[in-house]
């Protein structure tokens, strides 16, 4: 028997998840949404299907190919999206021989398809619509295409009614994925085994904790409840999961982050101490399911989309601190010089201290993790190299990196509101960097911010090495010694 | 269109910037590619990328002015095709982002297509600049350049496609 799968929803209900992909490719309990429909078909012995696509059709085709991986043979066509199924059927260049199955592939249904087919094949009507647990399952067995009413398959905002005469009800559940909340709930239900016919990928490493291949997670991560973790994930041993948690592939969760009843989409980084509850996290979007609010997090220290940013892609922490140590040793002869010059210039206050925002993280009064302040000194001299000498200590303590953006005070950081201004926050603060090396000390703040944003957008291991070389060169230039 | 074969694996094709010359050149590229890769899909993709690149050169580098030179260099090595599209018009300052415009916008799809059709591409602009430097007795800073004038530039877009070598 053939199947025709309508997967042409435009997906506006699930925005921002469908911002750059089709509903068919949204991850649901470790698999793509459409994959669950394909598996149900294979289970019922249906090996050939034609898929009707609309937005991001090329992505879906690339992901599913000819269907071999699922033991199926797939063909495709495209429409403008959410068209009437009867019209879409007319446009398909494929001769469908009845009986065939017509169904939606961009919703979720869990039930025994075999059961339905067995019962439906016995009837003598032109078509039979399926109800799973009394709900429209968006699935119709068509025996006579000319007399079939395909309207129950049409995607509309509200549920389509099913005519009672030609329907068969079987046990099961239908989720329309018509809101972010529904998408969230189905993910949790699937992970906890409430959708009985679903095949959940991965192996159980502890009671309630299932994980995919190449994933590093620890039984102690799960405090209570159920967690389903995808493949190639890395969870620090101090991460705490509770309630029902679904984590997609390629997710990194850093030290002491806590996640409760949430869905984490693939390619996400969750920073140190971050607390996530009742939310969907997709890249750097934090979607609160209870309030419906969508928060864009621009600080990649908290949340990051690993497809666009890589965390720690500069030089490693150990390297930074040892380089700081080395630099401190080399710079020892300069310290007495700095002291003498400062005392000569301003005998009353040769040395002063103030606070800057560093790279370490701590919880603030509201329990939200943020980058912590550190105290740093400055010699009261005009020679730039000597003036900022005490910052080397901050590199040794790990408050700032060797190479990074210009460290700023919390006050200045909080004034950054615009998206482009916050881009600079993606980069760690550092002793040296393009701003410190290339801009004059008296450049205005906007200019410095622009330079830091540029660094944030481009930083990486190679870039950092280049800046180290540049720093060595500038050390011997006049700019470092004379204002 | 003129062609000259200056090495066994390099074929150079030359046209002047006129939209009507794009078709024969596209067909020539298609034929060369079919010969090299034995794949109609690759031949079509590469032809499409080259045609889009040529359109770009004609419209933007030469501002639709006819009669300017465009050189297409076909360089074939084992399992790899390099196609260089060379012009002497206005250089691009940066590669355009390969993203689709608003769905009903009429232009701006060229780079998206090029990006999809080839495996890699890069753009090189060599600029010839005339620079004037004025030194006066009062100015100590003789390193200051005044009046830079762009004389001409040679822009090369290289498209790269990998393929399975046919025996």
């Amino acid at each position, binding site marked *: 028997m053939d199947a025709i799968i309508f997967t042409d929803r435009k997906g506006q209900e699930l925005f921002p998840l469908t911002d750059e992909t089709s509903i068919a490719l949204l991850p649901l309990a470790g698999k793509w949404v459409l994959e669950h429909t394909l598996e149900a078909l294979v289970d019922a012995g249906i090996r050939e299907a034609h898929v009707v696509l609309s937005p991001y*059709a090329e992505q879906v085709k690339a992901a599913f190919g000819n269907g071999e991986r699922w033991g199926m043979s797939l063909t495709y066509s495209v*429409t403008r999206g959410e068209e009437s199924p009867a019209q879409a059927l007319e446009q398909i260049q494929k001769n469908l021989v009845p009986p065939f199955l017509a169904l939606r592939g961009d919703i979720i249904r869990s039930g025994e398809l075999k059961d339905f087919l067995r019962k439906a094949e016995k009837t003598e009507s032109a078509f039979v619509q399926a109800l799973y647990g009394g709900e429209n399952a968006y699935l119709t067995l068509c025996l006579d295409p000319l007399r079939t009413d395909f309207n129950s398959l049409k995607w509309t905002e509200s549920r389509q009614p099913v005519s009672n005469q030609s329907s068969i009800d079987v046990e099961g559940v239908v989720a329309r994925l018509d809101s972010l909340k529904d998408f969230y709930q189905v993910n949790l239900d699937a992970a906890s085994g409430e959708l009985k016919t679903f095949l959940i990928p991965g192996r159980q490493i502890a009671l309630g904790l299932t994980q995919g291949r190449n994933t590093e997670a620890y039984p102690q991560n799960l405090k209570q409840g159920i967690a389903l973790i995808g493949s190639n994930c890395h969870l620090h041993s101090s991460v705490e999961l509770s309630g029902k948690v679904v984590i997609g592939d390629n997710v990194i969760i850093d030290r002491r982050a806590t996640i409760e009843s949430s869905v984490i989409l693939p390619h996400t980084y969750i920073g140190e101490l971050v607390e996530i509850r009742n939310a969907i996290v997709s890249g750097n979007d934090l979607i609160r399911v209870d309030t419906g609010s969508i928060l864009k997090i621009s600080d990649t220290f908290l949340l990051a989309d690993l497809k666009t940013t890589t965390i720690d892609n500069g030089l490693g922490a150990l390297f930074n601190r040892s380089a700081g140590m080395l630099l401190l040793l080399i710079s020892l002869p300069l310290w007495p010089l700095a002291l003498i010059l400062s005392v000569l210039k301003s005998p009353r206050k040769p040395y002063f201290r103030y606070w800057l925002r560093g790279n370490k993280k701590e919880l603030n009064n509201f329990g939200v993790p943020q980058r912590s302040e550190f105290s740093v000194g400055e010699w009261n001299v005009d020679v730039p190299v000597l003036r900022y000498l005490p910052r080397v200590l901050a590199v040794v303590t790990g408050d700032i990196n060797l190479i990074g953006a210009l460290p700023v005070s919390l006050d200045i950081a909080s004034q950054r509101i615009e998206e482009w201004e916050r881009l600079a926050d993606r980069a760690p603060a550092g002793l040296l960097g393009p701003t410190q090396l290339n801009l004059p000390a008296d450049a205005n703040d906007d200019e410095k911010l622009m330079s830091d944003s540029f660094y944030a957008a481009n930083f990486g291991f190679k870039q950092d090495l280049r800046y180290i070389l540049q720093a060595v060169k500038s050390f011997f230039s006049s700019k470092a010694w004379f204002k | 269109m003129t062609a000259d074969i200056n090495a066994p694996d390099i074929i150079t094709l030359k046209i002047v910037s006129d939209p009507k010359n794009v078709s024969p050149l596209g067909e020539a590229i298609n034929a060369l590619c079919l010969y090299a890769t034995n794949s109609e899909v690759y031949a079509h993709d590469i032809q499409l990328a080259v045609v889009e690149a040529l359109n770009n050169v004609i419209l933007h580098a030469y501002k639709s002015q006819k009669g300017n030179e465009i050189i297409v260099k076909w360089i074939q090595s084992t399992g790899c095709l390099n196609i260089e599209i060379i012009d002497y018009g206005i250089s691009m300052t940066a590669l355009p982002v390969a993203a689709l415009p608003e769905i009903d916008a009429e*232009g701006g799809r060229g780079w998206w297509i090029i990006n999809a059709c080839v495996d890699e591409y890069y753009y090189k602009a060599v600029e010839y600049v005339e620079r004037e430097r004025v030194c006066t007795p009062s100015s100590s800073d003789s390193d200051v350049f005044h009046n830079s004038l762009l004389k001409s530039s040679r822009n090369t877009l290289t498209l790269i496609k990998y393929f399975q070598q046919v025996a």
Partner: protein
Amino acid sequence: MILHEQQHNDIDIIELSGRFIMADTPEVRNRLNSLIKEGSGKLIIDLEKVTFIDSSACAVLISAFKNMQIKSGRLVLVTSPVVQSLIELTRLHTIFEIIPTLPRAIEALESNK
């Protein structure tokens, strides 16, 4: 590029064949504009015999689509595999009504489904 126009009842049909690229766009654009302006608001652009198409040709199709929308008419495309693949690559299938063959396109416009 060969252009061929015909009419089927009140439906305008324009058939293009061969290569449809930048050099051909001024002519096709003009013909389409006048067809849309003077026509009945039902137009089929038959691209089934088009062997090669580029993005500037797509721009002409988009412009025709927009003009037809202003007129509240209906534009249907009949595509060849090459045309279809470029339309899908540029995601234009989400705006164009595409019907696989000319007879079916005529049928669709006649019954106005």
